């Protein structure tokens, strides 16, 4: 547990790594468990390669479904990638992965709870050296905006999926099942998560210096700034709705639930 910090020469000689008396480890522990659970669940689903479509619902891990092997009904734009031999989810799932991995909130979450850098404030980290985001691969976090752009494209498609969830089996409109509500809610939460993004805040107006010369962008910046203060909440809420929406489709597609309410 070498640190080169709090026992450096000249500093007050105090042996304890931290003198905090509160339960500072609770939050990183819960974050660690929750994110690990999500990674396990999504890996299981992404590689499963079945139970991702139950008319009119499609799981977001498999949408847009571009591989030739996609089940009929789920196919997107004629499923053009016919040579793809693996789970169609693998064509898509890297986008939300990259989006969340480079997200400023999740960076805080995993730097604290997985890398313990630092585990909590004023608790010494266990590493001998530290270069932050100055080198590869972590310097790539600076291109978070590109992940955001791709994420926004996916949001449009998932919103379309939610609209399609209002169809009856015969293709006519007007169906409303529990799944319709779940898919719609999930799309809404993903929009809130993406729009409250720090890169989005910069893009709409943050990069401007003269707000007074750009009144419309200033308004947008003010609006996004309000959403941005809740970005962490939307990160967790949308992560939960992703799991709920996917698991619901799994239950419906595997036949575990059925009936007109589905």
């Amino acid at each position: 547990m070498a640190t080169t910090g709090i026992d450096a020469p000249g500093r007050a000689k105090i042996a304890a790594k931290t003198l905090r008396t509160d339960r500072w480890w609770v939050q990183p522990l819960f974050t660690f468990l929750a994110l690990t659970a999500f990674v396990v669940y999504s890996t299981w689903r992404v590689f499963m390669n079945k139970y991702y479509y139950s008319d009119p619902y499609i799981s977001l891990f498999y949408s847009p479904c571009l591989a030739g092997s996609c089940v009929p009904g789920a196919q997107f734009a004629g499923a053009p990638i016919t040579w793809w031999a693996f789970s169609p989810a693998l064509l898509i799932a890297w986008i939300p992965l990259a989006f969340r991995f480079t997200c400023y909130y999740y960076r805080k979450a995993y730097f604290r709870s997985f890398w313990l850098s630092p585990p909590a404030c004023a608790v010494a980290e266990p590493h001998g050296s530290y270069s932050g985001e100055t080198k590869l691969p972590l310097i790539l976090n600076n291109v978070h905006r590109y992940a955001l752009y791709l994420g926004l494209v996916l949001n449009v498609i998932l919103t379309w999926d939610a609209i399609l969830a209002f169809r009856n089996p015969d293709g006519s409109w007007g169906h409303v099942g529990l799944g319709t509500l779940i898919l719609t809610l999930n799309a809404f939460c993903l929009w809130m998560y993406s729009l409250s993004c720090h890169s989005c805040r910069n893009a709409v107006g943050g990069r401007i210096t003269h707000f007074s010369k750009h009144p419309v962008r200033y308004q947008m910046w003010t609006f996004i700034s309000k959403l941005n203060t809740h970005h962490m909440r939307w990160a967790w809420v949308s992560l939960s709705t992703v799991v709920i929406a996917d698991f619901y489709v799994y239950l419906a597609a595997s036949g575990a639930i059925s009936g007109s309410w589905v």
Partner: protein
Amino acid sequence: MTYKAKLRVWRGDDESGDLKNYEVDVNEGEVVLDIVHRLQATQAPDLAVRWNCKAGKCGSCSAEVNGKPRLMCMTRMNTFTEDEVITITPMRTFPVIRDLVTDVSYNYAKARMVPAFAPPADLEPGDYRMAQVDVERSQEFRKCIECFLCNNVCHVMRDHEDNKASFSGPRFLMRIAELDMHPLDTVDRRQTAVEDHGLGYCNITKCCTEVCPEHIHITDNALIPLKERVADRKYDPLFSVASLFRKGKEKRAAAPATPKG
């Protein structure tokens, strides 16, 4: 209602030191700094402690109370139970001089490295005109009382003495962000933010924000926006190409040579 608080206070200098136990009277409504003063007056006349305003405005009384970086004058005794042992130490990131007093000159050296505000050359000081919306954003950062608790808690230096050379800490990255967002500032501060002040070391874990007694949103409103502005310039190929085509884009001078602290 008076009671005796159990204190553990760090006593020592840059060579050696220890946590020493004391019992000190506490009256209703008092703050940690009051108790430290009473300790000094009644039992430990040679106890070194730095303070000035006792109102959370001068930034002198920064220390760590039960391991948390805090202003002693703004930490109320009623946040602790009567039988709790309260541990008070100097800030653990800066060299200690004696007892609770640290040498914070690292911060002054870094402050000197930030190029000063540079308005357009043809603008006389009395002629500065700015719209309220343009000033507002940086006004939040002007609340800073320079207590340096944010620099003290930042793990980049707190846990890695060797990073002090290349990293200026949240206090001065925030100062750079403030000037970079200033409509009348003509200096491009993005390069110096990365190269001289180590913006890339910050991993946005938000401890600076957690401890700031002025509740400045250092990470959300200064550091992340600065990272984004740097990305506009340095890491975003599309944006660089697009800006070649943009007409009338304000010309920004490169930062003047940085004086090394």
